[in-house]
């Protein structure tokens, strides 16, 4: 008769709530990201422009300061939808793009390269938790430079300009929030998908930037040669611009219909998510 001497006891203490477990992945990933001084420096840099815009809004409503500083030209800058759409969202999403470029492709590839996925998924975590954890990292970082400062800026302007201005521009916060999230989700999912398929960090970053740039170039060629909007279907930037303009309710420089742009971005995001989930699995296929 075999005698099994069990010298250990399984953990029987309290467990965290299942819904919150993805935060563990996010927490460690964020810690790794902020271990880079370059990234910290870039994060600070990306907040300089919103601070400058805060200064502009503040000065615009401070006649005394404008006079003392002899900055009367600032008074000519209208604080309106275009200010938030072109003056804020456009440059800030550029910063967010670089953040996604730096962080996104490096999130999944090391786990795949080191065969860590079976370890992750052998915990009480499923594929969705894993992806959500990684997505939260990108969403947190990019939110901090897009819609969060955007809404603060809007709040400041509303406070200084009064309730009437707020009522007249009610679309701006909505457009800032939704527009930023569309940008964040679509590009984050794509960067994670690239990271999952290109196991190697430097290649993944190059592939992410290269794919967006190369397809944009193809789209621009088609637009130039055929003179139609359908080349824009390959240009993520064109699609984003059209959707943002639609959200802000302003005339767009892009000819592509808003509905088509919405659908194209949805398909792009869904395709990225499909690619990503295909690679996230708890086993290794030995070929």
């Amino acid at each position: 008769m075999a005698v099994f001497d069990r010298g250990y006891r399984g953990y029987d203490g309290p467990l965290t709530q299942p819904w919150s477990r993805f935060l563990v992945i996010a927490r460690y990933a964020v810690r790794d990201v902020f271990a880079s001084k370059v990234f910290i420096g870039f994060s600070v840099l990306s907040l300089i422009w919103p601070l400058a815009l805060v200064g502009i809004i503040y000065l615009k409503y401070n006649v005394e300061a404008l006079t003392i500083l002899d900055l009367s030209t600032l008074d000519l800058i209208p604080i309106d939808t275009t200010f938030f759409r072109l003056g804020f969202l456009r440059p800030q999403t550029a910063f967010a793009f670089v953040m996604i470029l730096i962080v996104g492709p490096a999130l999944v590839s090391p786990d795949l390269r080191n065969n860590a996925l079976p370890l992750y998924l052998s915990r009480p975590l499923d594929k969705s938790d894993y992806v959500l954890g990684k997505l939260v990292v990108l969403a947190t970082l990019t939110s901090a430079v897009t819609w969060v400062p955007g809404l603060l800026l809007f709040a400041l302007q509303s406070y200084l300009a009064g309730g009437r201005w707020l009522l007249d521009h009610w679309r701006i916060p909505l457009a800032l929030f939704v527009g930023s999230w569309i940008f964040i989700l679509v590009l984050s999912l794509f960067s994670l998908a690239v990271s999952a398929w290109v196991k190697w960090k430097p290649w993944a970053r190059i592939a992410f930037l290269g794919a967006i740039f190369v397809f944009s170039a193809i789209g621009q060629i088609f637009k130039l040669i055929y003179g139609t909007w359908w080349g824009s279907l390959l240009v993520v930037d064109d699609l984003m611009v059209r959707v943002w303009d639609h959200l802000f309710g302003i005339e767009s420089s892009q000819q592509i219909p808003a509905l088509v742009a919405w659908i194209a971005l949805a398909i792009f995001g869904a395709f990225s998510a499909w690619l990503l989930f295909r690679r996230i699995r708890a086993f290794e296929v030995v070929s």
Partner: protein
Amino acid sequence: MSTAEASAVTTSRKGGLHPADSLPHGAGLWRAQVRALLQLELRKALLGRRSLIAYGLAGLPVFVMLVLMVAKRPGGAPVFESLDEARTVFSIIYQTFILRAVVFFGCVGVFTNLFRGEILDRSLHYYFLSPVRREVLVVGKYLSGVALTSILFVGTVVVCFLMLYPPFGLSRAVDDLLGGGGLGQLGAYVGVTLLACLGYGAVFLIVGLLFKNPILPAGAVLGWELIHFLLPPFLKRFSVIHYLKGMIPVPMSEGPFAVVSDPPPAIVSVIGLIVFAILVMVAASLRVRSMEIRYGDD
């Protein structure tokens, strides 16, 4: 061969002769080593799964040309209505897509990883343990990168250029290629592509050696090359595209905001880029000479 025989051969070196004693010395040895490096690097690069991205990149312009051949303009007119128009279209594709996107990103991928890739794969020590001068290693690896990108992208250019002709028939194609300047244009595009591989290759060879994360400097170089047309003439000299532009057979307008300056003569471009590549290799050799194997946790 039995172990005993193997042992006997190994032991024979005790008598004095080592297999390496019969090897050439000096330049002869270095040539043999560069050849071996080229073959080994090309074998790894051409047959590896990682090369699929490069192949895909090289195939994209062909795909674009196919679309242009098949899909007509709104209204039903073909894109390649005349040979002149076809050449203009090709020039647009070449300058906006092949040169600035395909060749550029191909060179980023291939050259930044010549050394960085081996560090990440933890296989650089096999080279560092070989009796090969580090300078020879740099030259061998750089030439293998040039060979690989040239094979891929010159091939792409040739195929794409020849795809201009099918709508006009074989005899017209032969006439144009042999007597109408088509071959000359093709040669110019091939030459520019080779020089682009040489120039961008040198840039990204050193970027891969100096930076652990080459994407940011590569992005900066991309930005610099893209705003080249806005730069004052003095600064234009510090971009690769400046030396290539003058040799492109069908020039393209750079828009109303471009700062116009005369491109350098072809001979200056060729010599300039070769000298630049040599200088970069000297710098890369100095860097590689001081490298020690300490694989990080990448």
